[in-house]
């Protein structure tokens, strides 16, 4: 059996059996996450899986059951993850959320987490509906998209990627649950990014949003797909192989690189946030489904830099470090005497 650098097999990165509808896009994302963790030889116990509530938020149970997981409450994945990371900065946090979880009830927490640039991977499994409550439109449903019930959405949709750029996020990408080739390298890069790496994954809901007229159905997504780049992941000391001919590269904090082979837009530059916004806005207008890495900037301070914490996780500190001296207490009290 093949094992990775930490001596684990792919199945060691698996979890409980999925209880989602067969064919649900979320299950494919789960398997991409497993592949990425396996290929990157991540130590399971270093990971913390955190989610909110929803079909998407159930998925952390379905991968890496050797890691601590926390299925919190609806819309609170972001602040729960922030707290966990500050308590133990050694944790590699994978946050999984849904479009309802992050764009509706959790929108405030989502935006503010990005502002703070909390080091973690933030995945939204985006199907444009509330799956678990039986298919109502979410805020990411595109204008004009139709529900299985026939109803049409007339509100302007929230584009989580342009919003993430607006909030100052330094790693903003969109992919498709069916595109393993793009998603796995993307996830591997995200895992090495020291800041919030946000990935919006379009993930069709086969039960409530796979109907004709739904812009997030498998067919519609395939039909309107506009891919900025194909991707490959190159480990820190790894040679760049010939298949990356003509690709551009972005380097993560650990020296690993993400190779970007341009596809549908030959002169797209991931360092230009305005260009990214242009592409996203135009895609939205033209009802195109654009995927790729939209914006990359690893120079932004993250919340840990900002906080200047000691190297040891706060959760590991004991009274020895935490309780000031008896003398200090006397001094302070003298001031109030």
């Amino acid at each position: 059996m093949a094992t990775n650098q930490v001596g684990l097999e792919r199945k060691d990165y698996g979890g409980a059996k999925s209880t989602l509808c067969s064919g649900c896009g979320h299950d494919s994302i789960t398997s991409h996450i497993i592949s990425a963790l396996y290929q990157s030889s991540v130590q399971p116990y270093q990971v913390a899986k955190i989610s909110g509530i929803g079909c998407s938020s159930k998925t952390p149970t379905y991968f890496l059951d050797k890691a601590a997981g926390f299925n919190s409450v609806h819309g609170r994945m972001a602040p729960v993850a922030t707290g966990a990371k500050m308590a133990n900065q050694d944790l590699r946090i994978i946050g999984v959320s849904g479009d309802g979880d992050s764009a509706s009830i959790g929108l405030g927490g989502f935006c503010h987490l990005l502002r703070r640039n909390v080091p973690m991977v933030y995945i939204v499994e985006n199907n444009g509906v509330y799956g678990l409550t039986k298919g109502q439109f979410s805020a990411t449903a595109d204008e004009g998209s139709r529900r299985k019930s026939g109803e049409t959405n007339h509100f302007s949709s929230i584009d989580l990627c342009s919003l993430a750029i607006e909030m100052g996020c330094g790693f903003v990408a969109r992919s498709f649950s069916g595109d393993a080739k793009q998603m796995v390298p993307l996830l591997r890069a995200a895992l090495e990014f020291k800041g919030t790496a946000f990935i919006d994954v379009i993930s069709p809901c086969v039960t409530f949003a796979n109907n004709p007229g739904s812009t997030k159905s498998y067919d519609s997504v395939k039909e309107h797909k506009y891919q900025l780049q194909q991707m490959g992941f190159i480990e820190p000391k790894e040679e760049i192989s010939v298949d990356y001919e003509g690709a551009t590269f972005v380097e993560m904090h650990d020296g690993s690189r993400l190779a970007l082979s341009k596809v549908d837009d030959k002169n797209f530059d991931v360092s230009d946030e305005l260009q990214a916004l242009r592409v996203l806005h135009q895609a939205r207008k033209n009802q195109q489904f654009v995927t790729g890495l939209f914006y990359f900037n690893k120079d932004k301070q993250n919340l840990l830099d900002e906080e200047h914490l000691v190297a040891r996780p706060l959760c590991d500190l004991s009274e020895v470090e935490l309780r000031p001296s008896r003398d200090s207490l006397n001094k302070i009290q003298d001031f109030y005497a």
Partner: protein
Amino acid sequence: MSKTVNDFSITIATVNGSGSQSANNILMRTLFRSGVPVGGKNLFPSNIAGLPTWFTIRVSEKGFVGRRPQSEVVVAMNKETLLQDFEYLKPGGLFIYNSNLRVEEADLPPNVNLLPIPFNDLSKDVSDSIQLKKLLVNMIYVGVLAELLNVGEEVMSGTIEHQFKGKESVYSINKNAVEAGRSYVRQNLKDYSFPLRIESKQLTQNKILIEGNTAAALGLVYAGCTFVSWYPITPSSSLVESFESQCHSLRTNEKGEKLFSVIQSEDELSAISMVAGAGWAGARAMTATSGPGVSLMGETIGLMYFAEIPGVIWDVQRMGPSTGLPTRTSQGDIISAVHCSHGDTKHPVLFPSNPKECFEFASLAFDLAERVQTPVFVLTDLDLGMNTWISDRFDFPDKPFDRGKVLKKEDLEKRGEFARYADVDGDGIPYRTLPGTDHDLAAYFTRGTGHTPQAKYSERADNYQDLLNRLDRKWETIKTLIPHPLAHYNNDAKTGLIYFGSTDLVIPELLELLGDDSYSTLRLKAYPFHREVQAFIEKHDRVLVIEQNQHGQMTELLRSDFPRWADKIFVLTNCDGLPLSPEFLAHQLKNISGGHNGH
């Protein structure tokens, strides 16, 4: 006319944001340093500057520093309220006012002792800057009062120095202002018979003068709190702000690295959720808020209860309902705290009664939260949190932290098994591991949905019922871990008084006012109720619960937890946003004794 010595109160009427606050504090601390117990009550508006504020300093050798509705002396510096200020004056008291406010003697009420003083004129000699003069006027009335009260020079200047440590120029100019006030009195009121006098005593040794929020902040530092997430709200903001500033000196290492993290969140939902995440990951995490914040935290607090995650919520209560009176005090959040969140949740709540307990209960709260793996509330109020209280000095806590049932790698190695939600010890409290523990048995999945002892998802009725029953066993264990109430039995007393929180400040005086020995007293320190509470109730023909809220919330809890004796539990409430007045309470109590039963 004989002078009242070391037993009086002075009310000073100013506008907020005018610098009077620090002047008042200097005066109060000076009296305290003269060795006489003092207390201060600041009645301030819910805005930033320009509105009426009343500050009352009470002096009492007996240590009776509860609120007095009226004072022997009122100093009126705010033209807007000059007439209203007479409400604060005792019959026969002395009314000092700023004669530069251009008020006609004629407009003032008749037969009141008036003492006009041209404070603005006096400030002219101290500075030319208009800005400064505005501020210094305050130090001038401090000087005037100090001289009239016959406060010693050195203790006064000592206090000013202490206040402005290291700021030489500020120190001297303030000192001059005080001197200007003093000399005015010496020159113009030489033979004036001022009704009050301070005689220095030795009654404040080993005491400090401090606000409950500052004491709580210090308590949290020494309790090993490492993570705070909060959203600003009066009257809790100063608690977190002083925690943060204390930590900058006490919790930062030589490399300038922080051993703490304070995150100002975007709202209370996120604040408590960050606390949940941090508590889950193993940090001593807390948030501080007030009523409206508690109302927003319910869902996540229910998650913490059910997923068994430790955390501390410090609620500095203000007057509700709704936004209510943000700068007035209340004990109105008791039921919101106890039953915070839907669907059969219950939380332990601690009720510190003075700054020393604010300091101590910070450790207590974390030990309890981590021991039983549940959110713990600490309820104080604006009076205790933001007013200045005299307090015994705090003892250094040398007891080690109780981090509760946390299994480390080695423990798992030894045990060879781990089930997150199994009741191994029969006390209802399960064992936990922290995320990041390097052992194959360590990982488990945390959720707010139904689960088995192995932390697997389950919708089975039997699993769920078992889980709820274990949580009830845990609740029984909590009753053995909370602090005992403080009971004073008075052998032939038929009536017992039950009280809690900031009410403690007025009890000694209340008992003296009541004069007779017909009361025993019990001070609650926590919910759930300790069995000694039941014993106390059983022992008396009737029990009166003193509460600072409208509906007698603690009484409701006592009645439902002690149904057998509910018929002899009566409530006595005061709910106008002002700190309790002992006279008022005494009056009420006498009424009740005369029949009316408070049901």
